[in-house]
């Protein structure tokens, strides 16, 4: 019952949900529920995405999808706080963590809600590359309100009393936060792939670390238009087994 109340609060007014005088206490009280909502909502979306291939991929995608939403939160947290401080906002780590968790949970609920739409599209057995793009589109659509939640929760609305310079800095902070969270979210998705497994490929929980999300998106966009060049991915990164 409490999960439903919190989920409703996340959709209607997430900032009011996490507002409170004792930020550490609120974090301790809400964090388990927010994590549970994130895992449940993202797992539902994972099941839908994994259904494109079916079989054990349904389970793999349901396990990995919550990690896709939570990994960027963990990696971006220090940068978000630093950007806020640079914008002249003294925000505690507890508040930033609460905002990020609320953003992830809100995104998870919205992705779960988009699940039937994505399933309907997958049910007409579209091309693999088009399926990947639709999944990315759904995540982007659901992710934007989530990221907006983070911004609104940590950057108070300008009531006109702040000086122009400070208000511009806050705007710069908001853009910086959206940029770093978008960047880490995109790379997390690439790292945790495959979510939509190719119909002919062997199913694997994770693929080897190679290239990056941007090269992949460019290749996928080309392939969706029938140009299948540029798929020769090279192993890159410190954790790649083939890196020098």
């Amino acid at each position, binding site marked *: 019952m409490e999960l439903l109340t919190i989920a409703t609060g996340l959709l209607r007014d997430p900032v009011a949900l996490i507002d409170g005088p004792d930020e550490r206490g609120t974090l301790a009280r809400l964090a388990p529920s927010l994590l549970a909502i994130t895992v449940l909502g993202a797992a539902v979306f994972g099941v839908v995405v994994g259904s494109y291939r079916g079989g054990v991929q349904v389970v793999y995608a349901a396990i990995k999808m919550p990690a896709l939403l939570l990994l960027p939160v963990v990696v971006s947290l*220090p*940068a978000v706080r630093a*950007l806020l401080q640079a914008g002249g906002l003294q925000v505690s780590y507890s508040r930033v963590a609460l905002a990020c968790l609320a953003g992830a949970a809100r995104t998870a609920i919205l992705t779960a809600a988009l699940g039937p739409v994505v399933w309907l599209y997958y049910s007409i057995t579209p091309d693999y590359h088009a399926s990947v793009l639709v999944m990315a589109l759904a995540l982007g659509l659901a992710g934007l309100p989530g990221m907006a939640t983070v911004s609104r929760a940590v950057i108070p609305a300008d009531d006109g009393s702040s000086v122009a310079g400070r208000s511009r800095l806050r705007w710069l902070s908001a853009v910086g936060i959206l940029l770093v969270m978008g960047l880490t979210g995109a*790379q997390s998705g690439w790292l945790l792939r495959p979510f939509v497994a190719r119909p002919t490929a062997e199913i694997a929980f994770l693929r080897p*670390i190679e290239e*990056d999300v*941007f090269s992949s998106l460019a290749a996928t966009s080309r392939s969706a238009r029938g140009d299948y060049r540029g798929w020769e991915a090279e192993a890159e*990164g*410190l954790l790649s087994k083939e890196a020098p």
Partner: protein
Amino acid sequence: MSQEHQMPGIIEIIGACGSLALLGVCAGLGAGEPALAARAVPAGLLTAAGAVVLTGPALVVAHQYQGHAADPQLLVSALSRGFVTCGEIALGLSPILLFFSATSGLWAALYSLFVAGAGAFGGAVTARRLLRAERGARPVDVDLTTRAGMGGLVAAWSTLAALIALRIGWGMASFVAGS
């Protein structure tokens, strides 16, 4: 001197230098080659510090030459605070750069982007503090030309600092690449 215009302590300055070097370490880990990694470590620090050190004196000289009211110490304080902000952001961005260094080949592009982003934030903080210092120091009935003069000076300093940072950054990129 008010709390806001207080000069950052030496520990804060050293901390900012350390943070920029840490960002370099995170980038270097993605480079693979030890020599390349070692050259990457100081690149961001030298770019940011170089831009501040090379443009700071010019700002103070031009400010005094134009007869503006703020104490030169406040200008140095604004410059230092901007550099400290740049370091704080670099520290916050380090985990993200480490993440990308570990999982992709984007370390060089993101290192450049993050140093530029941290520098832009530092510059914005400095510009705001410079304007505020001047506003707090000058008489209320000062004419419009004098007021516009400080805005022009800050804009000119920002442009010069950005150009010098770009030039040093270009040199650093060549140094890191070993060419």
